[in-house]
C-alpha cells in the first residue's frame, strides 16, 4: 500500500469542498497529478495543490492507497466522499460529510466531525475518535434508503438524528447522543454506551437500539416486553426490552409482527 500525505498549508478563507480526497480519486496518480485535482471554495474552482502540500504517490488502485490528511482541516468538507476501498486518516478534526456515501475501505478521523458524516453509508469502516455531529449515518434528505451497511464507531458523543432511515450496518457511540435516534429505521443496529435524551426510535419499523446509560423520556410507542440477559459488544448485562414503534406500520413474518427493538441496560 502506498501512502499519500496531504498537509494543509494555505487554509481557505471560507470553506473548502474536497470531494476528491479519497483513495478512489487518488488511485494511479502521482503527487503532482493529485495536486491538480479540483477543490472548490465557494464558486471558485481551484486545485488541491493550492491549499495542500502533497507528498507521496498513490497506489495503482484505491485498495492500494492510503491517504493521511494533516494540518487544520476543520473547514474542509467531503473528505472520504464515496470512497470504496483503501484507507484515509485525518489527523485532526474535519467538517461535514466525512465519509459521506462511502461504500468500503477504512476512514479514521482523530478529532471531531461535523454533521452528515457517513451519510447513506453502504460499507466500510468509519471511526471517529472525537465527537460526531448531527445526522451521523443518516439518509440524504428525502431518501428512504439510509445507511445500509458498514460500521461507524464514535469514541466521543454524537449529535441528533443519527441513523435516520437506517436499513442495515452498525453504529457504536461510546459517549452520549442527542435527540432522535434511528427515526424511521427499518434495520441495522445502534449501540449507545452513554446516555440518550428523548425521541429514541420514533417511527421505527425495524432494527435494534441498545442504550447503556439513561433515557430521559421513552417514546410512548415503545411497549415494555420484559427483561433479557445479553452480551452486547463484549459487555454482558441485564437489559429492559421494549418493542416499537407500535404506532408505526410493521412487517409480518410467519404471522408474527416484527417490531423495532430497544434494549436499555438495567
Amino acid at each position, binding site marked *: 500500500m502506498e501512502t499519500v500525505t496531504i498537509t494543509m498549508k494555505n487554509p481557505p478563507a471560507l470553506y473548502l469542498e474536497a470531494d476528491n480526497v479519497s483513495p478512489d480519486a487518488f488511485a494511479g496518480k502521482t503527487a503532482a497529478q493529485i495536486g491538480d485535482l479540483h477543490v472548490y471554495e465557494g464558486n471558485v474552482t481551484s486545485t488541491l495543490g493550492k491549499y495542500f502540500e502533497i507528498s507521496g504517490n498513490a497506489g495503482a488502485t484505491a485498495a492500494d492507497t492510503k491517504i493521511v490528511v494533516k494540518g487544520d482541516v476543520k473547514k474542509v468538507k467531503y473528505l472520504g466522499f464515496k470512497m470504496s476501498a483503501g484507507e484515509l486518516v485525518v489527523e485532526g478534526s474535519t467538517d461535514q460529510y466525512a465519509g459521506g456515501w462511502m461504500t468500503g475501505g477504512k476512514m479514521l478521523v482523530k478529532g471531531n466531525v461535523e454533521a452528515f458524516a457517513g451519510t447513506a453509508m453502504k460499507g466500510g469502516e468509519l471511526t471517529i475518535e472525537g465527537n460526531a455531529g448531527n445526522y451521523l449515518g443518516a439518509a*440524504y434528505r428525502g431518501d428512504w434508503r439510509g445507511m445500509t451497511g458498514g460500521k461507524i464507531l464514535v469514541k466521543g458523543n454524537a449529535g441528533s438524528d443519527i441513523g435516520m432511515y437506517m436499513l442495515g450496518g452498525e453504529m457504536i457511540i461510546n459517549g452520549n447522543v442527542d435527540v432522535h435516534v434511528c427515526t424511521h429505521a427499518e434495520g441495522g443496529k445502534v449501540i449507545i454506551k452513554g446516555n440518550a435524551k428523548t425521541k429514541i426510535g420514533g417511527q421505527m419499523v425495524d432494527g435494534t437500539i441498545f442504550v447503556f446509560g439513561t433515557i430521559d423520556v421513552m417514546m410512548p410507542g415503545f411497549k415494555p416486553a420484559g427483561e433479557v440477559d445479553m452480551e452486547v459488544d463484549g459487555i454482558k448485562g441485564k437489559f429492559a426490552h421494549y418493542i416499537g414503534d407500535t404506532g408505526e*406500520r410493521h412487517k409480518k413474518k410467519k404471522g408474527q409482527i416484527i417490531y423495532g427493538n430497544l434494549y436499555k441496560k438495567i
Partner: protein
Amino acid sequence: MSEYIIKNGNVFDPVQGIRGDKADVAIKDGKIVDKVGSGAKVIDAKGKTVMAGAVEIHAHIAGPKINMGRIYRPEDKLFTCTPTKGIERMGGGASIPTTFKTGYEYAKMGYTTAMEAAMPPLFSRHVHEEIRDTPIIDEGAYPVFGNNWFVLEYLKNQEIENTAAYCAWLLRVTKGYAIKLVNPGGTEAWAWGLNCLSVNDPVPYFDITPAEIIKGLIEANEYLGLPHSMHIHPNNLGNPGCYETTLDTLRLAEGYKAKNKFGREQVMHLTHSQFHSYGGTNWGDFESKAKEITDYVNKNKNITIDTGNVTLDETTTMTADGPFEHHLTGLNHLKWANIDVEVETGSGVVPYIYSPSISVCAIQWAIGLEIALMMKDPMRCYITTDHPNAGPFTRYPRVIKWLMSAKAREAQINAFKHKDKVLSQTSIGTLDREISLYELAQMTRAGPAKSLGLSGMCGGLKPGMDADIAVYNFNPDKPVANPEDIEKAFTRCAHVFKCGVEVITNGELISNGNKRTLWVNAKVKDNPQVMRDINEKFLKYYSMTQANYEALGHHFVPNPYALEVDATQV
C-alpha cells in the same frame, strides 16, 4: 427569418406518405415550403433520418403535482444536477426534471410539441407559469373535468348544452386545450376517502355514474367540435382485472362520431392503456389483457390510444386519480402526497421503483410493448410513458429501441429475474413485429398531431406546416448492427428546428426558440344560466373570487396561440 434547406436526408412523413425517400426539406419564415432561394443555409442530412418534430400527447410536465414531486424528492436530483452552459439554464431531476431541463430534453430528442395531461383548473396559473419556464416546445394543458361539480350537476340532468358552455368557459379562463377525465367520479368520491372502481359505481351525493359522465363529456366535446377528443384515464387504473372496466369504458364511445373542422376522427382517447390492460385477480395471477384491449380498439375506429410504456426505472407516480395514489402508498409504503382541489378534482404523488427483479413490473413492461405491437394502425396508437408514471419521458429512445428491435426485447426478457412468469402471463415472447421508421413517425408525429386536431400545423413535413423538424443520426439504409445504436440515435438529434428556428445542433442547445402556449378558444351562444351558476359557485363554494380565477396576461401566457372554435351556431 432565415431560410434553410435540409438536403439529402431519408425523409419519413406519413402526412405525405413519404417512406424514407431521399428528399430535401425547405424552411422559410417558420414554415415548410416547396423551395427556398440559393442563399438558404444548407443542412447536410445525408445518411440521416428526417422526420417532423415529435408530438407528446400525454405527459405530466407542468403544474402543482409535478412541482410537489420536485419539491418532495431531493433524492431524485442527488449528484445529477447539471450546470449552466451558455444559454442553457441549470437543470436537475431524473424522473421529475426542472422546467428548463424538461424543455431541453424534449427538444434534444426531437420533440417540439407537448401536452400537459392534467391541469387542475384552480391551479391553471401555476401550470402556465411552469409552461412559460419550459423552453422551446409548444405546450398545451388539459384541464380535468371528470370530477368537476358543475359537470356532475349538469350531466345528472343530461344538460349537454350547459356542460358544453361550462367547458368552453373553463377552457378559456384556464387557457386549456382539451377535455380530460381522470377516474371520473372516483376522485370526487376520494374527497370522502372512497372511490368508483367501475363505470356504474354511483358518485357519492351527486347521484351520477362514471358512465354518464363519460358519455356526457363525449357529447359536450363533439357539441363544441374541439380539436382534441375527450381524453380519458378510466376508472380502476392499475388493478388486476381492470381491463374489464377499460372495455366498459371504451364501449361508451360506440355510436359517437367525431364532429370537428380539424380532421380529428376519434371521439375518445384512451391514455396510458398499459395501466388499464391488466387481467388476473391478484398480484400473483396478474396477467396481460393487451390482446383484449387492442382487439377492441383495432375494430373501433373512433378511438385512439397511447401506450404508457414501463421503462424499468425509479420514478415518481402522479395522477389526478387521488384514490389510486393512496392505494399505491399502501403497497410500497413510500411517501404520499395528496392534493384535493375544491369543486374540481384531486391528485396524488408517490415514488415508485419499477424493478426488473419484480415479476409484476416486468409484466407491466411487456404489456406496454404488446399494446404498441398489437395495434394494427399506428396512426391510432402513440408512444408515451405517461411521464413520469411508467417512466421518465427521457427514456423514449429506449422504448423506441424495444419497439424497433425484437433482439433488444429478447435481451431484456432474458435479463428479467422472473423471465418465465413474463412469458407465461403475457404474449411478448411471441411477438416478432418490429416497428418501422415510418410507423414510428406515425406513432410519434402524424398520429398524435391528428388526434390533437393539429394535423394542419405539426406532425408532418408538408409545405405550409410549421417547420418543426428533427434530424437523427440514424441511417435507415444500413442494417442495425446493435440495438443500442437505435437508442443512442434517438437520444440526441443532429438538428432540431422549431417553427423554423434551429434550436439543437449536434445534440447541443443553440437557441431557446419561440415557445408558444396552445389553447382552445371555443365560442358558444350566450348562456346566462351557466354564467349565473359559475357566479354562485364562486360566492358559495370556492375559496377565491371569480375575478381572480382567470390565467390572464403576460406573466402566465406570454406567447399564446389560440385554436378558434365556433359553436355558436350549433
